[in-house]
């Protein structure tokens, strides 16, 4: 009975949740695919290259924001201000186009970063609840936009700025990226296998390694092929993928990420384990702010102009994405993968219902219902264990 433990890599509860969400996404996709079958599209319209590409472009901004929001929520906080920050940073980028492309884009990211640092400092060092600080930010930053833009919508003049939101990368570059991606997947798995041997841990079975290499590689290649049929991978989607990869690495493979989960999971235990809570909460808000700056660029470029009410309610989409993706608003639980998946589910519902000409009011009701149902399902599943 004193059986010591043996550390095999097993399916963890968090992974199980991710698979459930993935299954839900596939069900949603298949439904819309079936529902969009007509005489012109005998196999359905929804997952066709053109529509799928459009769907991904729609989700890119929310997805980028969701990655940042995830880190803030995991640390046990919330950021309600990012919709306004997207508006403000986008407005400033549009206003400073005269300085050249690089300065105006850098400026947008810098504005987000500074606002994130400011709000994060108020939360971490002045102990003002994040809900209040960022609710204040939601109002204030929107006010600053009105002052700076005098209420006017500013068009994007620089062609390259505009193309960031609308254009596609050359299909050949897409294939190069796919090849690099596959090489990366193979390399990390080989490295992992060697590391486990070096530490004397049970090696993975050959089957497991093949699956760990083959599944993501096939998904990646299929994705590039599909996108290339619609002109190539959209540039915003490239940004989203980069942010999601970086975010996933940051949360799963760095001390920063580990400490964020610890702080959200049990602040007392984290503090007594020598973690500087204030510093990491501040850092999470900084990351969120910088990503809001990036999102503002993608959004402004896609719309083609910066309007004073740009970004309104985006914070709620980002929060909803995290929550649908299994993030706990109490902190300590959630993954970047889940948050992006949540954004994809929301975008799929939006896009699919529009294709089916579902009336506007019904779209809102469905999205709200899905949010509550996802959490309810999660709670139900957790109570059983």
């Amino acid at each position, binding site marked *: *009975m*004193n059986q010591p433990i043996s550390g095999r890599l097993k399916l963890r509860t968090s992974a199980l949740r991710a698979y459930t969400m993935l299954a839900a996404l596939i069900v949603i996709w298949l439904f819309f695919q079936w529902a969009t079958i007509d005489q012109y599209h005998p196999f359905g319209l929804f997952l066709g290259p053109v529509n799928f590409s459009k769907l991904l472009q729609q989700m890119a901004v929310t997805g980028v924001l969701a990655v940042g929001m995830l880190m803030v929520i995991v640390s046990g906080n919330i950021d309600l201000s990012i919709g306004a920050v997207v508006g403000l940073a986008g407005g400033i980028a549009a206003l400073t186009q005269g300085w050249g492309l690089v300065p105006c884009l850098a400026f947008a990211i810098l504005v987000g970063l500074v606002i994130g640092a400011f709000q994060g400092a108020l939360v971490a060092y002045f102990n003002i609840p994040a809900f209040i600080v960022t609710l204040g930010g939601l109002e204030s930053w929107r006010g600053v936009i009105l002052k700076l833009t005098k209420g006017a919508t500013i068009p994007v003049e620089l062609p390259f700025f505009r193309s960031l939101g609308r254009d596609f990368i050359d299909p050949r570059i897409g294939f190069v990226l796919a090849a690099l991606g596959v090489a990366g997947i193979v390399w990390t798995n080989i490295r*992992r296998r060697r590391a486990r041997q070096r*530490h004397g*841990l049970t090696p993975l079975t050959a089957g497991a390694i093949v699956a760990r290499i083959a599944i993501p590689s096939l998904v990646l290649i299929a994705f590039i092929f599909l996108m290339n049929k619609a002109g190539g991978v959209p540039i915003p989607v490239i940004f989203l993928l980069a942010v999601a990869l970086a975010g996933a690495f940051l949360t799963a493979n760095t001390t920063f990420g*580990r400490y964020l989960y610890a702080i959200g999971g049990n602040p*007392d235990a*984290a503090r007594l384990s020598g973690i500087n809570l204030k510093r990491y909460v501040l850092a999470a808000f900084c990351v969120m702010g910088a990503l809001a700056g990036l999102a503002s660029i993608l959004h402004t470029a896609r719309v083609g102009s910066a309007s004073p009410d740009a970004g309104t309610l985006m914070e709620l989409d980002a929060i909803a994405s995290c929550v649908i993706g299994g993030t706990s608003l109490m902190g*300590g639980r959630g993954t970047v993968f889940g948050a992006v998946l949540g954004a994809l589910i929301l975008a799929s519902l939006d896009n699919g219902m529009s294709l089916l000409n579902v009336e506007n009011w019904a779209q809102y009701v469905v999205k709200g219902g899905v949010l509550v149902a996802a959490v309810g399902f999660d709670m139900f599943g957790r109570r059983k*264990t």
Partner: protein
Amino acid sequence: MGSELLAMKHITKSFPGVKALDGVSFDLNQGEIHALVGENGAGKSTLIKILAGVYPHPQYGGQIILDGSERRFANVRDAENAGIAIIFQELSLVKELSVAENIFLGREPRRLGVINWSALYSRAEKLLQDLHLSIDSRAPVQNLGIGQQQLVEIAKALSQEARILVLDEPTAALTEAEVETLFEILRKLRERGVAMIYISHKLDEVFQISNRITVLRDGQSIGTEPTSSLDEARVISKMVGREVDQIFPEAKHPHGEAVFEARNITVEDPTVPGKLLVDSVSFFARKGEVLGIAGLMGSGRSELLMAIFGAHPARKSAEISIEGKQIQIANPYDAIKHGIGFVTEDRKRYGLILDQTILKNMTLAGLRRLSGRFFTDEDAEAAAGERAARDLRIKAPSVYTETGTLSGGNQQKVVLAKWLLTNPRVLFLDEPTRGIDVGAKQEIYHEINRLAAEGLAIVLVSSELPEVLGLSDRVIVLHEGRVTGEFKREEATPEAVMSCATGRRLAA
């Protein structure tokens, strides 16, 4: 003294793995103060919770007889209606509301469904006058001192026509003057026929106020006697009266030089300015030595360790040196950096992230050392974690199991592993075996001895006296934040330690 009001007969209560009460009988007369004493874990709180309806009827064995007929309380409300009021150590007043609102909370006098404020305040004032209390019934409770809040609790209990008042460590947070006021009121209530159960670690107070004393030990009653026929020494010997169990492995650690020294540790009570929880305590620990810190609840043991570790907000002074070098500890990070590990009490609150895996909990405090400064290496962690899990015999399907699903003993081992993986030179253990089963306790005892034998300096705090005496090479005793005694292993008898712990300063 009046007639018998309450009799609890052959009360038995089990928790998983532990028999908390084993056939305890207890009775209470009208107009009597009956003291209930015993070590932490002797079963006092459990007995009171049964009386209060916290553990409703079929969850315990035995009978509760009130006014000659058996009562089976289904819940706390039931017991309150029967006239039983409990005043817990943690006060249950709503700080933002006024004294009068608190007294009548949930039972406000109403007219047409609307609170009748004038009746509320006049009734509250009459009640306070009856008790000769000069407290403004309109003052918010948060403006009152702890002593006055306690009196408001008593007034509240009396407003519910309580006939049995249970006071659980009522003087723990009071100044001497406040204790006097409290005792005056308790005496007055006794004259009016109110029966009281008085639970306290402070034996001098027990002897001042009580008519009879019942001693509990290991879930059994050791006897009830009139206070006048007892003295403190006899009560102490009844409280500890067992042999130190065989479960402590005999261990003789060859001691090295002092690796750790703390001087002038002083901690203020964050809620009561001016009151010191720890008052210029100094001690040292040698390489390979287990230093026990004994003391009853509220003696400042945990606060002392928290303050040294840089984790107490109200630390006033501290001088700490490791291996003869003076060091500054401003926060737990500094403490860990200098080789102090701290297995904190209350593992669920301070020790573990229950949602996370065993591995992530084990590597949290030593993450930078085990894994990397910025990038983590899950496999390096897994290797270290699996070794620790094997060494400590943690029983779990794998190191990727969530800690929340483990038994208390295994959770405690995870906390211990977490601190061993920081590679400490000094290890603080605060209540390392609280609430875990005997088998796991013994494994932790063996581990403590093994670590000491390997040259670690260990500082052990425990409210279980046999544990402190069985493991320590040297024992210091705290009472109300001060060191009241120090013993070598051979000299540390339960009686001697307990009398220091109850405040009888050892002659120098």
